[in-house]
Structure formats: C-alpha cells, structure tokens
C-alpha cells in the first residue's frame, strides 16, 4: 500500500474500482427497477431518458461510495496510533472542478430533459379527443365526435389521443402506468394530456392523487385495440347497447361500512 495520501496509485486503484462498480450497479438498478410494458410512444422517450439517468446515478453513487469505502479501509486508524491525519484544508482547483463539472452535467441533462418534455407533450394533427371527468371515485370518458360516453377508456393503437380532463369534486390524477405520462384533473379548469398508445392490450387508468376515502380503488379499465375494433366499439355504443353508466362513485365503497367524507361533513 502506498504511504502518502496523494500517491497516484491510490487514485488509480480507486478509479478502477469506481468503473467496475458503476457497471455492476447500473445492471443492478435496472434489475430492481423494472418498468411496466412500454405502451406508448411517450414511454419510449421517457424510458430512454430514465435509462440515462440510472446510468448517471450508478456512476455518481459508485464514485462517492467507493471512494468513501476505500478511505475507510486504507486510511483507518491503526490500534494505538494517536497521531493526526495529513493536514490539508482544501484545494481550490478541486472545488472549482467539482462545481463546474456538475454544472455542465446539469445543463446537459437539462437539455435532454427539455427535449424529452417537448417530445412527450407535442400535439399530433389527427388526434382522438376524449373528455375525461373524474369524480369520487370513478371515471367517465366521453367521445365528443361520436357522443359516446363510457366508464371504460377504449383507444385505437398507434393513433395520438388527447385527454381533455376536468374534475367534479376534488383533485384527481390520470395515470396509465404503461403510457407513463400523468396529469392532474382539477375542478374548475380543463387540463390536457397527450399520448399515443403503441401496444394493444388491457390496462388500467389509476387515480394518482389522493382523493379521499376510496382513492385506492379509483381505477378504470383501459383497452388499446386495433382501429377496426375501436370503430366497431364506437358503433355499438352509439347504437345504444351500452350498459348503464356509473355517474357517482357510490358503488365503489360498497364493500366498506365507513362514512364517506361527504357524510362526515354534514354532521
């Protein structure tokens, strides 16, 4: 082992260890953070950016922890040694370096962040508009072009969809994990969310903003289908064979016998 704390061999060994750990940690992080199905074009953009972030996290975590652990082993006090450590109070060049380099990294990631944001929020010319209404504790989806209303969200694959959303009571949040993107529904205003489903399948739209008693069960089914099936579904709905709609959230808490917020308030 080199004696001096500023011996170059320390830095070479630590550097190699940091590199190895970064690779291992990157693999580990991506294993313990499994993303749901990549179900939309927006998901591809977001997952790409997430992946870069995770690699950066792996590197920075390794950098700090490996150097820390290296110090703990190499520079630990020997038994009976009461002397002091090497006296250096700081290094201005180093301080400037680890201020400026992170600053550059911040701006690089900021740039990619802005680009990704404009990608995932960009409007497409041929959008399907759905008016989404949230209420305690259910969802209502209305298709203004065809006048169809439903408690189930059905969308064609590979076609941009635009949710124009509002809430009847408290704040809710529209989230289909497979589509990645999320947007709050605020009473008194209309918010917009765009996504383009890319994989057919059955998903759920979950309320992501605490909205009272049955927030946990404010979930509605989502089906992403082929264009033809979507049109057929719309036609069936327009013909009036639709089942009755849930207009209030009362049925969702039938399994619990506690008071709803509204009841408690009127006491």
């Amino acid at each position: 082992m080199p004696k001096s704390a500023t011996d170059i061999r320390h830095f070479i060994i630590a550097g190699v260890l940091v590199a190895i750990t970064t690779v291992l940690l990157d693999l580990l992080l991506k294993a313990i953070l499994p993303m749901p199905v990549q179900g939309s074009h927006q998901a591809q953009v977001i997952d790409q950016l997430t992946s870069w972030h995770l690699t950066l996290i792996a590197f920075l975590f390794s950098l700090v922890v490996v150097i820390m652990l290296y110090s703990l082993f190499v520079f630990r006090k020997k038994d009976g040694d009461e002397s002091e450590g090497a006296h250096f109070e700081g290094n201005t060049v180093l301080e400037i370096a680890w201020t400026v380099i992170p600053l550059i990294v911040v701006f690089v990631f900021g740039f990619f962040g802005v680009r990704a944001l404009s990608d995932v929020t960009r409007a497409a010319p041929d959008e399907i508009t759905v008016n989404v209404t949230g209420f305690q504790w259910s969802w209502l989806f209305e298709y203004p072009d065809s006048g169809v209303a439903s408690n189930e969200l059905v969308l064609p694959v590979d076609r941009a969809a635009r949710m124009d959303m509002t809430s009847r009571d408290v704040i809710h949040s529209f989230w289909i994990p497979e589509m990645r993107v999320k947007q709050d529904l605020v009473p008194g205003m209309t918010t917009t969310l765009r996504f383009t489903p890319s994989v057919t399948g059955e998903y759920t739209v979950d309320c992501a903003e605490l909205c009272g008693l049955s927030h946990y069960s404010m979930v509605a089914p989502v089906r992403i289908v082929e264009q033809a099936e979507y049109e057929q579904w719309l036609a069936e709905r327009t013909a009036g064979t639709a089942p009755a709609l849930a207009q209030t959230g009362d049925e969702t808490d039938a399994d619990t016998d506690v008071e709803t917020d509204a009841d408690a308030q009127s006491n």
Partner: protein
Amino acid sequence: MTLWSLGLVRGVVGQIVGFAAGMALVIASRLLFGFDPVWNQEPALVGGIIIGSIGFLIGVGALTDWFKWMRGIETPLHHGPPHGRPAWTRYFGVDYNHKVIGIQYGVTGIILLGIGGMFAVIFRTELAASGFQFLNPSNYNTYLSMHGWAALAAILLGIGGMANYLVPLMIGAEDMAFPRLNAFAFWINVPGIITLLMSLNYGWDGGWTVYPPLSVLGPVGYQFTFWAVFLIGLSSILGSLNLIVTILRMRPPGMSLFRMPIFVWAVFATSLIQLTATQFIGQAFLMLSFERLLGMGFFDPDKGGAPILFQHLFWFYSHPAVYIFVLPGLGIISEILPVFSRKPLFGYRWIALSSIAIALVGFLVWGHHMFTSGYGEYLRVPFMISTLLVAVPTGVKFFSWLGTMWGGKLSFPTPMLFVLGAISVFLIGGLSGPILATTATDLFLHDTYFVVGHFHATIFGGFVFPFFAAIYFWYPKITGRMYDETLGKIHFWLMTPAFWTMSLGQMSVGVMGMRRRIADYDPALGVEFGHVLVTIAGFTIAFSVLLMIYNLLHSAETGRVAGNNPWRSRSPEWQIPSPAPEHSYASPITVVGEPYDYGIPNSTYVHMAPLAAADD
C-alpha cells in the same frame, strides 16, 4: 413537591379549561350576532383549539414574565434548578437555560418521532399484503396523514433541539439572545402537538399536503391539523429569529463568520428559510381553515377561487422546508467527520457557502412538485432547471466530505458510523432527485412510491441518521457518561441495511406502478414481495430505535464516566466539564485559531479566557 408544581401539568389543565372557554366563547358570539344554529361543531372546536393553546401557554407559565413586564415589574433571569424541588422538574416546566430547552426540544422530538413512526409501522403492516387486513380505508388515510405531520413536527423539534443546545455552546455564548422567547417557542409546540393528536378523534385524509378541495370537504379533523401546524410554524419562526440574532451578535472576539463551527453555518442557513418561508404555510393553512369556517372561496372554483393557488403557497414553504430538515443534519456530518478523520474539514468555506446556496436556490424550485398539477406549461422548464441546479452545491458537500476522509486517521465509534450511514443514505436520496426534477421522467414517477423512497432517503440521510449521530456524539457532554458502544453499533448495523432495503424497495414498487397513498393495491402489479421487504425493514428500523432509547436511558445511570473531551475535539463545548455546567463558560472565551486545524501540533481553536488575558 406536588404534581401541580410541574408546568406541563398546569399547561395541560390550562389547555382543557381554555378549550372549554373557547367553545363557550364561540357559542356566545354566535348568539350575540344572531347566527343560526347557535351550536355548530366546527367553529366551536376551532375556538376551543385557539383559546386552549393560549390556556396551555398561560398554564405552563411561558407568558408569566411578559405579563409582569406589561405591568412594569422587572424579572431577573433565574439560573439553576427551581428552589425546593428536585432538579429534574425543571425539564417539565418553563426554564430559560438553552441547554434545558435544547433537551426539551430533543426529547419531545424523539417522542413525536416515535409516534410518527408508530403510525408508519401500523399502515406498513397493512400494506404487506393486498386486500384489507385490519385497517379500513378511512383509518388508513388518517394514519397515513398523521404519520406525515407527526414526523415532520418531530423533525422540526429535533432540529430545534440540536440548534438550541449546540449553537450557544459552540459560539461560546452564555445563552440565546432572547431566553424567554426561546422558552415560549418551545412550549408553543406542546399545545400544537396535543392539537395534532386530537385530530385522530375526528380523522382527516388528505396526506400531509392537505390539498383543497379535498381538505375543505373532508372531516373536521382537518381543522386540528391546520391549527397544529400553525402553532408549530410559529415556533419555527420565533426560534429561527432567536438563532439568527444569537449567531450574528453573540459570537466571541476572534470568531469571524468563517471561523464559526460549520454546524452554526448550517443552522444559520436553515434559520433564514424558517424565518421567512414558514409564513406561507401558516397563511395557506389559515386560509383553508377559514374557507371551511366562513365559506371564503380562495380555493373553491365555484366562487372564482383556484385550487392550484394553494399548491403554490404550500410548496413555497414545503419545498424549502426539506432544506430546513436536511441542512442542520448535513452540518452535523461536516462537524463530526473531521473529528474522527483527525483532519481539517476539506473546503470549509465551500461547505459553508454551499449551505447558503442551497437555502437560496431552495426558494426558486417549489414548482417541481407541481409538474402535473395543471399550472402554466411554460413554468415546467424553469422549475426543472432551477431544481437540477440544487445538485451542484449538494455535490460540493459530498466531494468535500470525501476530501475530508481521504488521507485521514479514521476511527469508527457509533457517531462516526451514523455519519457514514447518513452519507450513504443521503446519497440515495440525493441521486434519486434529478430524475424527479426532470419533467418528462417525473410525469411517470410523480405520486408513485418512487417519490416516497426518494423523500424518505433524503430525510433519513439528511435528518434521522445525523440526528442519531449527534445524540451519540454529544451524549457524553449532556450526561457526563458514555453510551454503550456495543448497543450503539448494533443499532447502526440493524438500521442502515434495513433502511437501504426499505428505500430501494419503495423505489422498486413505485416504478412497477404502485401509487402513493393507496390503502390497497392490485396483486396483479406484482409488488407484494417488495412490500413485505419494506415492512420487515420498517420493523427492523423501529426495533433498532427502541434499542437506542434503551441505551440512552440505561447509560445515563450506568455508563462509564466520559471525561471532558472523549473525542479529542477542538470545539469549545468540549473544553468545558461534562456534563456541561449551568453557566457553560466560567469566563468569556476568545477564538485564536481555525476550528478544524487537526494535524497542526499545538494549535488551538479557542482560548478559554477573555480577550485581555489572551493578549498576555
């Protein structure tokens, strides 16, 4: 000695009497102004809360001296334990010694941390399996919300404890600048905590963020929360005011700003935020309270109000609040690290200024909590960039800590272990931040368990671990005895891996689609295993903290006598006897060197005599 001679007992009685009087007052004024019906639960309870809190303060005696001043009576400061009563009783009543107040803050903080943790353990157990085991959605939501504010109040108290005990000692001051205000600022927390716990009786379900309209429509328990937070916030404001004056005006000769112990810098930065931003949450919670009481439509769209306005007001405090929580802890890390590295703090000025930088940038980032809220889209990018910028001063701290350890002579007693644990845990919290600050990725992660994991890592790394490190480190100075080293190490080795597991587990289930604050989840998500791990980890942490409390109580009686300076620290508080005497410094001290010049033979930081003697 009777029970009545304890200020706390008188305070609680005062609060009960005041509560009844407040309710009566509201009923009487409704009668006077012709309101119908005369009995209305909510205004009556609010009246009870307000007058009850004043009743507590009168009962405990926090206002006694000021009332005397108003009548022109001089009140000399009383030093030492009360006459004719056992010394321990001073901890249960108004006492003006900053060390007593520091202990009062700290112990109340630990108790409240335990209560907050207990709520977490209860609903964590419920989450270990899908379906409802022993909670229903209503009490799940209440416990979840209570966990939030109980833990946050505990953190504010813990910070108050460290700051009050350590700052005057570290700058060689006899006491805080305003001892009576100091006692008042502590005691106003107690009726606040009692009020907060009373909310359990009525329930509330908004989480700690209490967004309207939910918090306006929900049960009356919200009122208790609003006013409890208001009282605790008032304590923050007055306490920080006191600390700023103490730090700026009561330093000894020779202690320039850049010769202060680094913890004092951290407290200064924290106090700047507490003094100013806290007003916003007080105001926002008052507005909520009055929206409920008088139908004032601040946040009600039907009356032209805006729910999003609340989020702006709330986060303008609550984001900087996170820096209030972590900056003192980071100061503790910087303070303890050089002692056990036997090396100067690397880049002292950079660390000091990075605290101020974090505090200032912290005022410009609140909008990153609102990326999905529906505010103007043009706000997303500026808030994203400003938030990412916080990484720069935070990075300076991490790298400087590494520079401090590199080439030192490191030893690892319990306080040092907790400091190292804090660095590793805060690193998890810090590094999971930029991905949430980046708007595009946040659209996915917002309001998921990933955020829960990130936040808890930040708070454990920035507050809980350093707080425990501080407790172990200054325990010999407080009690004069050593804690049990073996138990301390067991505490560390149980808590740290458990916390890593918990943190990564929370992030993992969050990415898999687990939303925040849900009482039950779909087993199809596949997150049950993760939740079981997190729950086991939670219990392990709870057990390890109980071990620490046992250690602290037990060692106060049986621990080995510590001596004045068991850590060979240069800081002034270690140059005086342990436990610290009533008057900390026998004579005013003079600063003659740098605080962290370990490794220079015969250099000292302080000269334990006044300036004139130092010149000799």
